[in-house]
């Protein structure tokens, strides 16, 4: 059982290197240079293939990956979902509003129960960052549906 992780990873990495090698060999040719753009990728692909074979046959001295406690995987996936929503809504809704929603919902979800301080932080922080970036650092963050 100890070796299963190395074997699994070895196979996955070998597949990745094979795909990478395939795309490296199909790169268009450019005849006017001694070393074309596919040389380095091809070498890298073979190195990765070689290393994944080594990994497959190597005995792991480390313990197997630890199991996540029950339900933790779901919590991490939920946070991942919030982050993806954050990214999707960032440009349409604007930085301040999206960040407000993200901080308040995500913190509440992870177990922060004080509503009042939650709302204050998740409103004050994006607002101050927004104005710091836009007026002081001259970096335009998406304003979205808010008028400023």
């Amino acid at each position, binding site marked *: 059982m100890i070796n299963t992780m190395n074997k699994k990873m070895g196979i996955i990495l070998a597949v990745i290197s094979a795909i990478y090698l395939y795309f490296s060999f199909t790169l268009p040719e450019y005849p006017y240079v*001694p070393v074309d753009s596919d040389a380095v990728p091809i070498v890298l692909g073979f190195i990765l293939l070689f290393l994944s074979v080594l990994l497959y046959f190597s005995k792991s001295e*480390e313990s197997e990956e630890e199991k996540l406690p029950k339900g933790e995987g779901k919590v991490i996936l939920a946070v991942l979902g919030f982050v993806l929503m954050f*990214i999707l809504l960032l440009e349409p809704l604007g930085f301040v509003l999206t960040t407000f929603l993200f*901080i308040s919902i995500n913190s509440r979800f992870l177990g922060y129960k004080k509503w009042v301080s939650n709302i204050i932080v998740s409103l004050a922080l994006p607002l101050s960052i927004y104005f710091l970036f836009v007026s002081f650092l001259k970096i335009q*963050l998406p304003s979205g549906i808010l008028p400023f």
Partner: protein
Amino acid sequence: MSIFEGILTGFQVALSLKGLSFVFIGVVTGTIIGMIPGLGPITAIAVMIPITYGMDPALALLLMAGVYYGSAYGGAASSILLNAPGESMAVPTTFDGYPLAKQGKAGKALAIAALASFTGGTISVILLTLFAPFLAKVAISFGPAEYFALMLMGLMTVASFSSGSTIKALISATVGFIIATIGIDSQTGTARFTFGNINLMEGIDFLVIALGLFALAEVTSLIRERKERSMFDSEFGSMKLSKAEVKELSVPVTRQSLLGFIIGVLPGAGGTIASFLGYITEKKLSKKPEEFGKGSIVGLAAPESANNSASSGAFVPLLSLGIPGSGTTAVMLGALIVLGVQPGPLMISDHPDIFWGVIASMYIGNVILLILNLPLIPYISKLLKVPKPMLISLVIMFCIIGVYGISFRTFDLFLLVIFGIIGYFMARMNFPAAPMLLAFILGGMMERSLRQALTISDGSLLIFVQKPISATLLAIAFLSFIVPLLKTWRKRKSDGDAEETDSQAS
């Protein structure tokens, strides 16, 4: 420009009111970020990059130097107060720092850590001042073959020195290099592995990788620990040191500062090795080795001065050769390039103001850390009381701002999440992330010099062995790759000897 003149010009910028306040802001911000368990200098520098974007480079450098030293100190502070080292380099700090804090001497421990870091940093920067221009003079004769060999050696030594399996570290480095090949090839204009996506044409920004692999991946372990209330609530105690204590510390701290510098200059070996080695040697040399691990002040000071000295020592190859030797200096290189500063042998002759500006800001960063940050540390550490759920949301937000503030594309944010997921799985399967980041940054440079060298030699690989410097460097690279592999092979052959080789490896 002589060394003296150069330093004076650098200090002129650094000592202005504006300059000082930027270092101060940097040191405090760095301390706060470094204190968050799991987040270290790499994240701190990466998050600050968009903020320095478009700033006067001299001031931005001061800010970065502050962030750099601040985050290292913040890591030490969380090691001492919470027994939670932010990264491997700060692990030996917990051995004696946390026992001291439990004895109610947290203030003293923080003061010793600051003093030791200050001494290590300062001695190291002085040596850097003397050493870097010299190395740059040597490096000016380097051709692409030598550069390629040097970078390959750096990458190989990092991979073989990193904790855990060498094969995994090498895989990590190879994948980093592979990611670097995405985008338009600068020599032929061929679009490689972009799959027609215009967002990938320019390649992937290193910030996406740094923040994804390090900060975002670390969020998952914060999520798992969100219910733990690891707060520091005992007494801080006095921050004063007695004369006898200073005397006791002076010799080990000086010794470790010198040793740390040498380790830092060597590619591959970095702060982690320096701090562990510092702890072990001082324990061996100490008259009271039985105190180590129970709150010895020497045991706390030794790794702190060693790792800070090594971190500054790592700037020697970065500034004089333009080659980073560790994950942290790799991000620093990225930050410098964003500011329009290209480190390398030509920097000292072509842009002496910037070169000496970097050095001066390192001196100032150290001083500010000691005289302004230290008195504030009891107040800054109150921020550790920010509830974990809120902290997690904020770290995620800063990662997203960090990437968006540089690229203004949601595409890069999705990439950030992907690298966060990759980093998460890498951490769970014990693949080190630093070689991947370093290989990604070195990858483009290595490919360029490899192809330049082969253009010069008209395609003959002999150019790498005909030149003595490049041949030597390649030999070292080869050895650092083959020796650990032979070790694992020998271990497989005779399982009974496994324990022995293990203790040798560690």
